[in-house]
C-alpha cells in the first residue's frame, strides 16, 4: 500500500477529551453512577508489625447507617491463586482479611460498609482493634539483605585498582510516593458469579487477572472499566488490596460497594519509589576515560514480596568501560511493597552515575559534556548490539547551544546574584522503554466514521488523542470522524500503561488494524467495477479525509461512505497487533536525553531554587507535540520534586509514615517551577517499531535530580549526594 499522508500525526492538537475534563463530564473511578452502591471505608493497622488480638465492632455497628464490619474473623476465605502477572513481585502477596497478621503500619485490617460515606467513615473510627505489637524493622541500614542480583563484565576490582583516578562515593535517596491527584478508588458490583469493577488503574488487564485469581473466576467473568485516570505515575500498575476489599465487600453485601482511599491511605495502600543506599566506586585514566565502576545498591522491599526495578541497566550500557561490577540487594522491611514510579530505576541510577560523572569532570578539570563525550560507547557494551538510534551527542550540542552552556563558569561559587549563588549543571538521561505485545480493533462504519478500541489507559499523557491521531492518518479520516475507546477489559488486551510503551505498542497495534481496514477498503474499490478506482493498482490508492483516490490524481476516487453503501456493507473491521520487541534483539533500544539547569542557592539560608531548565530528548518521532510538552514539563517538575522536596518519612519506632499528607509530603508548587523548556530531536527511530517512536513519559524525570545537584555544586562548591537536597545540607 501507498504510505498515507500524515495530517494528524505530528500536529500540535489539543486533547480530544479536553472538553469532557474541563466541564467535569469525564467520569473517574469513584464517580461512576452505580445504582444501589454502598460505601466502604477501610480500617488500617495502627501498629507496624504483630497480630490482631481483638476487634470490637459493637460501637461501629450501632452507628446508624453502618451495615457490616468485615475483618479476618468473619471474612470468607479467598482462593488467592498464584498470579505471577499483574506486576505482582515475587513472593506471597498480601491477602486481605485472611489472617490476624499485621505486616506493616497501615495494612487493611477491617472494612466498614454503610449506606453513606459519612456513616462508613465514622463507623471506621469506632472500630476498636487491639494488637500484640512488635517493633517493625523499617530502616534500610538495619535490614537483612537477600542474595543480591549481580552483573559483571571484565575485572572491576582490578580495573579500579589500576586506575589513575579513583573515587568512592556514597549516595542516599529518599523514598518517594507517586501522589497522583486522583485518589485510588474502586466500585465493585457482582452479577451472579460475574464481577464488574470500575477502578483507578493503569492496567485493566492486570487488575482483571488479579481479581480472577484472587476469587478463582474465569477471566471472562471479570470486567474492569477505567475510562479516565487522574494521574498515576506508576501507582496504578498493580491491583492493590483495596480493590479486592471492594470486590469482597460487594460479594458479602450482595450490593455494589465503593472504596475510595484517603490521601493518607495512599501512602501505605499503594506503592512507592523505594529508598536507596547506593555506593559507587569508579576509576578512570587522567583524561577521564572510564576504566571501571563498582555499584552496590540497597533498596527497600517488603517482607512478603521482592520488588525489583531496572536500577542496574544504566550502569551497564550508558558509558563505555571495560569493567563493571554490580550488586543489587533488595532489603526486606516491614513496609508495604514498593512499586514503579516515574523513570523507575533510571531516575535513581542517573542521580548516582551522573552526579559522579560531574564530580569526576570537576576533579579532572574537564567540561562535563566533554567528559561524557570521551566515554560515549560505539555499541551497547552489555550485549554487543548496535544502537537503534542514540543521538546523545546531538542532545548535548543542541542543549549546550540553546541553554548557553558556554556562559557557565566551571569554577564553583563564581556567580552571584544578590544573596544568591548561581550555578549551572547538566546530566544525561536514558530510559529503557518497554515493548510488549499489544492488540487493537478498528471498525470503519458505512457512514464514514471509525472506532478504534484497545484496553489501554489514559492517565494523563493523552492516549485518547495520540491514538486517534494515529488511527485518523492510517484510515485517511479526519480527527473528528475517529473515536478511540480505552479503559475496558472487553477491548483487545494491551500491556500496562507505563514504562513509556503506550504510544509504541498500542499505537503500532492501532496502526496495524487501521492499515488492514484501509487495505480492505482499497481492495474492495479496485476490484469493484462500479468504483472509479476499478482496476487501479492497490498500491497507488491513498485515502484522505474519508475519500479514496489515486495518488497524485485526487479527482479519481470515491468516499468510504459511497464504497461501503454501494457494496451493502455496514462496516469494515480488523484486529491489529504489535508483536513485541523482536526476538532475538537486533538493536539496543533506549530513549535518551540531556537535562540542563540553572539554580540559585541562598547558602546562608539553605534555599535552593530552580531558575530555568531545558531538556533535550532523543525519543523518536513525536506524535503529538502539545502532549509531549505536557509530558516533558511534568517530568521535569517531578524531577525537581525528587531533587528538592519529596521524602516519605517513616518513624522507625513503629513503622508509621509521619508525613502521609500533601501538607507534609512536599511536592513542587507553581512558585517552585520556573521557565521550563523541552526540545525533541527531529526524526524517528525506524528500528524501534512501526511508528518510529521511543516513548517519552519516563525519561523526562530521569536526569533532572543529578542536573540539579550538579548545578548546586557549581553554585556553591558543595557536593550533595543525598536526595532530597534540603536546608540542612548548607547549615
Amino acid at each position, binding site marked *: 500500500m501507498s504510505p498515507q499522508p500524515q495530517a494528524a500525526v505530528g500536529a500540535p492538537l489539543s486533547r480530544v477529551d479536553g472538553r469532557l475534563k474541563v466541564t467535569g463530564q469525564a467520569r473517574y473511578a469513584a464517580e461512576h453512577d452505580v445504582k444501589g452502591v454502598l460505601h466502604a471505608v477501610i480500617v488500617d493497622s495502627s501498629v507496624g508489625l504483630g497480630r490482631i488480638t481483638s476487634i470490637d465492632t459493637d460501637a461501629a455497628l450501632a452507628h446508624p447507617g453502618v451495615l457490616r464490619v468485615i475483618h479476618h474473623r468473619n471474612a470468607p476465605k479467598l482462593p488467592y491463586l498464584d498470579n505471577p502477572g499483574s506486576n505482582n513481585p515475587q513472593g506471597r502477596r498480601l491477602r486481605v482479611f485472611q489472617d490476624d497478621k499485621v505486616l506493616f503500619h497501615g495494612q487493611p485490617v477491617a472494612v466498614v460498609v454503610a449506606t453513606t460515606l*459519612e456513616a462508613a467513615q465514622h463507623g471506621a473510627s469506632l472500630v476498636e482493634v487491639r494488637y500484640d505489637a512488635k517493633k517493625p524493622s523499617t530502616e534500610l541500614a538495619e535490614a537483612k539483605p537477600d542474595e543480591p542480583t549481580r552483573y559483571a563484565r571484565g575485572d572491576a576490582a582490578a580495573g579500579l585498582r589500576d586506575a589513575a583516578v579513583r573515587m568512592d562515593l556514597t549516595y542516599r535517596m529518599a523514598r518517594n510516593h507517586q501522589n497522583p491527584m486522583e485518589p485510588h478508588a474502586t466500585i465493585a458490583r457482582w452479577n451472579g458469579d460475574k464481577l464488574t469493577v470500575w477502578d483507578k488503574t493503569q492496567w485493566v488487564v492486570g487488575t482483571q487477572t488479579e481479581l480472577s485469581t484472587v476469587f478463582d473466576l474465569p477471566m471472562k467473568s471479570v470486567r474492569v472499566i477505567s475510562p479516565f485516570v487522574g494521574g498515576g505515575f506508576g501507582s496504578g500498575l498493580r491491583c492493590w488490596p483495596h480493590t479486592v476489599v471492594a470486590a469482597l465487600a460487594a460479594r458479602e453485601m450482595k450490593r455494589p460497594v465503593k472504596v475510595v482511599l484517603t490521601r493518607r491511605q495512599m501512602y501505605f495502600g499503594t506503592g512507592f519509589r523505594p529508598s536507596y543506599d547506593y555506593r559507587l566506586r569508579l576509576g578512570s585514566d587522567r583524561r577521564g576515560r572510564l576504566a571501571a565502576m563498582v555499584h552496590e545498591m540497597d533498596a527497600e522491599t517488603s517482607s512478603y514480596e521482592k520488588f525489583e526495578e531496572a536500577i542496574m541497566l544504566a550502569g551497564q550500557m550508558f558509558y563505555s568501560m571495560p569493567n563493571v561490577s554490580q550488586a543489587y540487594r533488595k532489603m526486606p522491611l516491614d513496609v508495604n511493597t514498593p512499586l514503579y514510579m516515574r523513570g523507575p530505576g533510571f531516575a535513581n541510577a542517573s542521580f548516582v552515575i551522573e552526579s559522579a560523572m560531574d564530580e569526576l569532570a570537576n576533579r579532572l578539570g574537564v567540561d562535563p559534556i566533554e567528559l561524557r563525550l570521551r566515554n560515549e560507547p560505539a555499541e551497547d557494551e552489555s550485549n554487543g548490539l548496535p544502537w537503534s538510534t542514540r543521538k546523545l551527542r546531538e542532545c548535548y550540542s543542541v542543549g549546550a547551544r540553546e541553554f548557553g552552556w558556554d556562559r557557565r563558569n566551571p569554577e564553583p561559587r563564581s556567580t552571584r546574584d544578590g544573596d544568591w549563588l548561581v550555578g549551572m549543571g547538566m546530566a544525561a538521561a536514558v530510559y529503557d522503554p518497554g515493548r510488549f505485545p499489544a492488540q487493537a480493533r478498528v471498525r470503519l462504519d458505512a457512514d464514514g466514521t471509525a472506532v478504534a478500541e484497545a484496553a489501554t489507559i489514559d492517565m494523563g499523557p493523552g492516549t485518547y488523542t495520540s491514538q486517534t491521531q494515529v488511527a485518523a492518518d492510517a484510515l485517511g479520516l479526519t480527527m473528528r470522524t475517529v473515536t478511540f475507546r480505552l479503559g475496558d477489559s472487553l477491548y483487545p488486551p494491551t500491556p500496562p500503561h507505563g514504562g513509556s510503551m503506550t504510544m509504541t505498542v498500542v499505537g503500532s497495534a492501532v496502526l496495524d488494524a487501521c492499515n488492514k481496514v484501509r487495505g480492505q477498503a482499497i481492495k474492495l474499490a479496485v476490484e469493484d467495477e462500479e468504483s472509479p478506482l476499478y482496476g487501479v493498482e492497490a498500491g497507488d490508492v491513498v485515502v484522505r479525509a474519508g475519500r479514496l483516490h489515486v495518488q497524485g490524481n485526487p479527482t479519481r476516487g470515491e468516499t468510504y461512505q459511497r464504497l461501503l453503501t454501494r457494496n451493502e456493507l455496514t462496516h469494515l473491521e480488523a484486529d491489529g497487533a504489535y508483536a513485541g520487541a523482536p526476538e532475538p534483539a537486533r538493536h539496543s533500544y533506549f530513549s535518551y536525553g540531556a537535562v540542563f539547569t540553572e539554580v540559585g542557592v541562598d547558602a546562608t539560608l539553605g534555599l535552593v531554587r530552580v531558575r530555568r531548565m531545558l531538556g533535550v530528548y532523543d525519543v523518536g518521532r513525536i506524535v503529538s507535540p502539545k502532549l509531549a510538552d505536557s509530558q516533558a514539563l511534568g517530568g521535569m517538575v517531578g524531577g525537581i520534586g525528587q531533587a528538592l522536596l519529596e521524602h516519605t518519612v517513616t518513624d522507625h519506632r513503629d513503622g508509621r509514615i509521619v508525613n502521609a499528607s500533601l501538607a507534609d509530603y512536599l511536592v513542587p508548587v507553581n512558585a*517552585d517551577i520556573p521557565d521550563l523548556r523541552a526540545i525533541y530531536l527531529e526524526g524517528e527511530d525506524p528500528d524501534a517499531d512501526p511508528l518510529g517512536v521511543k516513548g517519552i513519559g519516563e525519561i523526562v524525570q530521569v536526569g533532572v535530580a543529578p542536573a540539579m545537584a550538579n548545578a548546586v555544586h557549581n553554585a556553591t562548591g558543595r557536593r550533595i549526594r543525598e536526595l532530597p537536597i534540603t536546608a540542612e545540607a548548607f547549615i
Partner: protein
Amino acid sequence: MHPFSYTRASDTREALDAGRHGGRYIAGGTTLVDLMRETVERPETLVDISGLPLREVRATQGGGLRIGALVTMAETAAHPKVRALYPVISESLELSASAQLRNMATIGGNIMQRTRCTYFRDVTADCNKREPGSGCAALKGHNRTHAILGTSDACVATHPSDVAVAFAALEATVHLLGPDGERRLRFADFLLRPGSTPNREQAVRQGELITAVEIPALPRPLRSGYLKVRDRQSYEFALTSAAVALHIRGGVIREAKVAAGGVGTVPWKLPAVERHLVGERPSAALWTAAADKAADGARPLQHNRFKPELLKRTVERQLRVVGGTK
C-alpha cells in the same frame, strides 16, 4: 468526622450564649474542619460566627491599629493602613498558606490555629496536646520541623502561624469578650507555652470570643518586614522565620521589635536581640552580634539540629534587610 450540630450566631449575644453552653466557634474553618475530618477535633456543637460585625480594620486613638477578629487574612494583608504602618503584618500574611486559604481564614482563627505536628494530627499516635497523658511521639520521633524553644518534655510542637510572629514582635493585644465582659491580653500572655499542659494553647476561657487584635502605636518612622525560610517557595510552613521592626532616628536604633517563627512552641519574642540593637548604629557587625543571641536557650532535637544556626542566620538576614545596611 464525628457527628456534630451546627448553628449560626446572628449577633454577639447569641454567639456568647452558645459558647457558654459548650459550642465551638467557627469562622473560616480552614483549620477546624480539617482537624474534624481527621477526628482530631470532635466538637459537638459548632457555632458559626462569620456573620458577626467583627470585620473592621481601624486606627486606634493612640495611633495603633485594631484588626477585627473576622477580617480575613487576605483583607488584612491588603489593607492600606496595614500596608502603610506595619508591612511586617502584610508580608507575614502573604507568605502564609495559599490565596484560597487566605480568602477564607480570619485573623481570630489564625491565632487560634493548632500545630502542624504530624503526630498531633494522626489520632493513632501519642500526643499530649490531643490526649493529655498519652505521651509525646515527636520528642523522640521525627522532629525536623519541631520547636527548639519553649519546649517541654510533654510537647515540642511549633505554633504554625506567621502573622502571630508579627503580632508577638509588635506586642499586640488580644481583645476578648466573654460572659463576664471584655478583657484584654498581651499577645505574650495569650498563647501558652506547653509546660505540662500542652492541651491548653491559649488563655481563652470557655465561651470567650476574640473580637480583635490591636497593634500598639509605635514611633515613626518604623521599618518592618518578615522573612520566611521554608523548603518550598510557597504554601508551606516556616522552618524558621523572623519578624523585625526597627525605629531608627538620627542613625541610631531607638526601638527594635524582633520575634521568630518556626522555632518556638509559641511565636518567639527575642528580647535579648532587641536589647542588643537599641542605642546602636546599624551595621553588618551589629546584625551578626545581635542575631547571635537569637537561639539562646535553644534545645534542638534529633532531626532539627540545624535550626539554631538557621534561626540566627534568618534573624541576621532580616535585620539587614529591614535595617538597610549591607
